């Protein structure tokens, strides 16, 4: 074996891709040829570096299975990552809530807008733009996010009877079907809004920046903490909170609610009332115990949802 032949086989030699007889020939030549041995070391070093540097990008062993599982789940409508719904639905049957969450992501959080309008039936959520991420879901018991976590425009999340899903919305505009309860919870760092529809669809959103709520037929509950809330002439409710603010205050505004109900938010005051406390089991989703202080960790909910939060 001459030097040229050795050089042509060096990469395969380093990679363990040569038949045993050729390996022996290569070893004999390299032991006697300093130039080829030097080249051998270079190839070996480069190859090792290449493989090591690319290792973090290697598709996981479960990659293929994850894709196939998601596709299968998607096709069966399982958790509800169903195929895109038809556009332009029929007559209005119910008021629907449309949430426009304009999230400027600071860590994982941004801003949102919420509105009611006609759309899919109760218990369904359709992503209009942006992305919704399924954090957890419950069918019998709470489970980690499905393999397919993100829901893109035109796709829907449909919870079957008795099931629930917790989602995070980032830069997303979604439409939620059914009578929806909106629950606001703020901490010094962030504001969470929880939507719970009659169809047992729960949506948790973490917000750091200003967002808007346009709501009709919505019951608003301000839970622990405080938020800036403003009501526009058109019934538009603006809620804002700021990142890193040690205290989020509320102007004195009234929020018109469905069925003649009204909620007053005192100027400059911190809302401490919990007219309708967040159910204990929901607090547990957020990684908190009922009655814990608002400072107990803004990211608790995110942490609980750990695997589902890309880039967290």
């Amino acid at each position, binding site marked *: 074996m001459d030097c040229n032949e050795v050089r*042509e*086989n*060096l*990469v*395969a030699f380093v*990679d*363990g*891709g*040569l038949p045993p007889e050729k390996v022996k020939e290569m070893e004999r030549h390299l032991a006697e040829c300093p130039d080829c041995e*030097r080249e051998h*070391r*270079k*190839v070996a*070093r*480069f*190859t*090792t*570096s*290449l*493989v*090591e*540097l*690319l*290792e*973090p*990008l*290697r*598709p*996981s062993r479960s*990659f*293929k299975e*994850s*894709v*196939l599982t*998601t*596709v299968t789940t*998607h096709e069966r409508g399982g958790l509800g990552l169903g*195929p895109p719904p038809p556009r332009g639905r029929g007559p209005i049957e119910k008021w629907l809530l449309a949430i426009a969450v304009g*999230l*400027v*992501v600071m860590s994982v959080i941004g801003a949102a807008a919420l509105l009611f309008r006609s759309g899919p039936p109760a218990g369904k959520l359709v992503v209009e733009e*942006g*992305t919704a991420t399924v954090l957890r879901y419950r069918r019998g018991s709470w489970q980690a996010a499905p*393999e*397919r*976590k*993100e829901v*893109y425009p035109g796709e829907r999340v449909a919870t079957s009877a008795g099931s629930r899903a917790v989602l995070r919305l*980032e*830069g997303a505009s979604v439409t939620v079907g059914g009578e929806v309860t909106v629950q606001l919870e703020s901490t010094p760092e962030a504001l969470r809004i929880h939507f719970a529809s009659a169809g047992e669809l729960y949506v948790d959103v973490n917000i750091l920046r200003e967002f808007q709520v346009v709501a009709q037929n919505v019951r608003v509950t301000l839970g622990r903490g405080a938020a800036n809330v403003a009501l526009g002439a058109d019934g538009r409710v603006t809620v804002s909170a700021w990142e890193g603010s040690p205290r989020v205050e509320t102007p004195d505004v009234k929020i018109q609610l469905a069925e003649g109900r009204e909620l007053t938010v005192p100027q400059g005051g911190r809302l401490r009332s919990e007219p309708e406390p967040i159910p204990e089991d929901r607090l547990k989703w957020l990684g908190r115990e009922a009655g814990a202080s608002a400072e107990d960790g803004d990211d608790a909910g995110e942490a609980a949802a750990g695997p589902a939060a*890309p*880039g967290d």
Partner: protein
Amino acid sequence: MSGDDRPAPRSDAELVLASIRREAGAFEELVERHQGLVKLVAFRHSGAEADADDAAQEAFVRAYFSLPTLKDPAAFKSWLLRIASNVARDIARRRGRRPSVSLTLDEDAETPAPFEGISEVPTAPERLSQRELRLKIVEAIESLPDDYRQVAVLRYLEDLSYKEIAERSGLREDTLRKRIHRANAVLRQKLRRYISEGP
């Protein structure tokens, strides 16, 4: 892909049509065949390792449900890579990250760290962060001719043995060795400024 003496694996176009017919294993084969390259493209366009896997998976899922709209099944790979780059860009945009092709240091960049051998080189290669270095490698791999790129992805990204690569690609082992040798030579040339080969 050109097979030699081995029975050639089914073409992308055949697998696409079989997938549309819901033939068992067809889409699985497409995923297995292209997962590495899709992951690299997703990384290059999202700019973060953490997002690349999600983007790559999402690209396959989107592609699967859009297969019936693919006019030219033979163009599956380029179509799939476009989906992957779009998904990855969306993710990067939502995170406020600059396109990954930019090598400007950003918050995601890790502390520049030399790796083995770098200090021994008389002319030190450019010191890049690990992330920047990965981007350079990915760009170099993507720039390879298709035949070389395919084997380079299987060998260096997926870290498969020659036997496994031969089985998956349908190439004879001697053909495979030549292609990997060429791919390695081109990559060494392209990455010489960044990866030290030692003295």
